[in-house]
């Protein structure tokens, strides 16, 4: 399941739990858990787009700017090796 989720993520442009769940015939909550597990195991990495805006940065003209709520997931080198 984990490898299949990794493959699905690799072939997708959007991380959609519903579409991965549909393709693999598993629940969205299971997709969510498997993706989190892949992150914990270092096969995926995630970031939230704009970490620099989470606090006041010295020299920032607009220190109160919002963090853009876009979660981004990348496949790590470890993950890429599994997919090869």
């Amino acid at each position, binding site marked *: 399941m984990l490898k299949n989720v990794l493959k699905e993520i690799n072939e997708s442009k*959007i991380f959609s739990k*519903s579409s991965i769940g549909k393709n693999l015939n598993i629940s969205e909550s299971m997709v969510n858990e498997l993706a989190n597990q892949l992150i914990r195991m270092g096969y995926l990495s995630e970031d939230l787009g*704009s970490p620099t805006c989470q606090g006041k940065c010295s*020299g*920032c003209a607009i220190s109160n700017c919002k963090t853009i709520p*876009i979660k*981004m997931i990348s496949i790590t080198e470890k993950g890429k090796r599994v997919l090869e």
Partner: protein
Amino acid sequence: MNTIALVGNPNSGKTTLFNALTGSNQHVGNWPGVTVEKKEGQLKFNGNIYNIVDLPGTYSLGAYSEDEVVARDFIIKGNPDVVINVVDATNIERNLYLTTQLMEMGTKVIIALNMMDEAKSKNIDIDIEKLSQNLGIPVIPTIAAKKKGIDSLIQKAVEFINEDIYNYDPISYGENIDKEIHDIRILLKGSSREYPNNWIAIKALEGDKEVLNKLKSNELVNQHLISLADKASEYELEIVDRRYNFIGNIIHSSVNRPTESRETLTDKIDKIVTNKYLGIPIFAIIMFVSFQLTFVIGSDLLGGYVEGWIENLGGWLSGILLTLNTPDWLLSFLIDGVVGGVGAVVVFVPLIAVLYFFLGILEDTGYMARAAYVMDGLMRALGLHGKTFISMIVGFGCNVPGIMSTRTLENKKDRMIALLINPFMSCGARFPIYLVFISAFFADNGGIVLFLIYGLGIIVALVMGKIFSKTLFKGESSHFIMELPPYRLPSFRSVIRDMWDKVWDFLQRAGTIIFIVVTLLWILSIFPLGVEPYSQESLLGKIGTIIAPIFAPAGFGTWQASVSLFAGIAAKEAVVAVLGMVYGGASEGRELISAIQQAFTPLAAISFLVMTLLYTPCAAVLATVKKETNSIGWTVFMAVYPFIIGWVGAVFVYQVGSILGL
């Protein structure tokens, strides 16, 4: 005294259960050698006292964090008489993963299936008996927050202390791995270990660093594991996979939850707004409508108020100063300099507020994430990293955080390109410049012109990004995918607060940086003493006259326009402030607009807008580039190359426009 350990995922209600079991009989310390908090307490039940240990919240018992190591070490080395595994009934898939690892350890465990009330409210129906039967573990439903099920849980835990029977079957990891586990167990036979051999074998195959370190002293096992190095990732994934398969089968037979809607409203909307062909046009239409509404509401409905206030303030201040026989130089500074300069910028606050209001709504609904997504395809086609567009969106507010947000790009090539093209994104500080010129020449088509300016910034950024990726920074961009948040109704309070934060920041800058720039330029404008302030004979006029020929081919080779662009390198808001000053007395929006109508032609105005959009970014951006790249070379490059692009663009627009007779 018997010991009962509590283990569970973070937020499973473990600490609430601990408090319910121990009441006030608890104390807090630290686990030896680490900074992880250790909570212990005492439970009195049927005349006996039990020691209750609250282990750190953890998702698994690997070696990924200190919490995991502390929890598993206590379970194995601390020899608790029974372990209560607190499982969140609303998130059972995730929580049972920990349970499978407790089973691998051979732990005497019972499950407190907590938050049953929340599971019920979410229509999650759990067959407790079947779940217990499938796991081979007693399962007690609880609602720790309401102290429900606690007595049954204690009763079962106490009974279980004296039982020696483990009812659960070991999980099978497939023929190959089961055989490897068996082989490692044989190799470990006879060696004295603090952990069970079966568990050591599983963890070794899973690549658990702590276990592998401990096994280095065992030559036979070590050699065997080295021979399996090629299969390390395969085994790691397979073991974890088997645990999830095991969980999946159990959930399938004992948990009934409402059918998840495979296509939500968000999915339906996304099918349209992120469509391959419709995505970018929809993004363009949304931005155009936002700009158009900004003009309709910000200028036509609200614009007159602030203009009136500034006008009244100027008149009132002038009257008072004249009554007090204020010297002419101070009168000139306060009225022409401060009110004329700062006022010329402040007068556009309503438009800025309305624009940020609409951008705030787009962000709060979750649309901006879709905008980044639809642009991702275009970015990739141009050889740029999709994350670049996110830093570009941040740059719409201010290029400083825009450049800082490029830190999320791991690849140096991607990061440098994103950083170098960010200043082409039209920041809020340039907005008043556009507004002055649009109001002067294109008032009837304000939304379209503003849309085209922002669009031009994006296009130039993408073209430059493509050029950089083909010349200065060659190589492949790394791949990423986005998780788009579900759409939601925007929170009016949050949008207003965000808008106010940005307007307040704009006003603060008007009151500080612009004030300083205005003061410096005012000083330049009154020297040498005796000349007409703000005249071409002043020092300011002379500096402008020296620079002006550079801009003559672009159609705005006047000393006033040149000085304003020069001041804009300190802060972009200063461009309008300086125009307000140098067109003496043009303090109020309408007067400044009239002065600009006389000084520029419509074609020269477009050329000037192109220049201000693209030329050298402000000092704060250059300082950020220096900080982020730690290179004077790149900082100088950032100052020079946009100037050249801006100048070429402005000259092109003016010359081609002139040939076409515009």
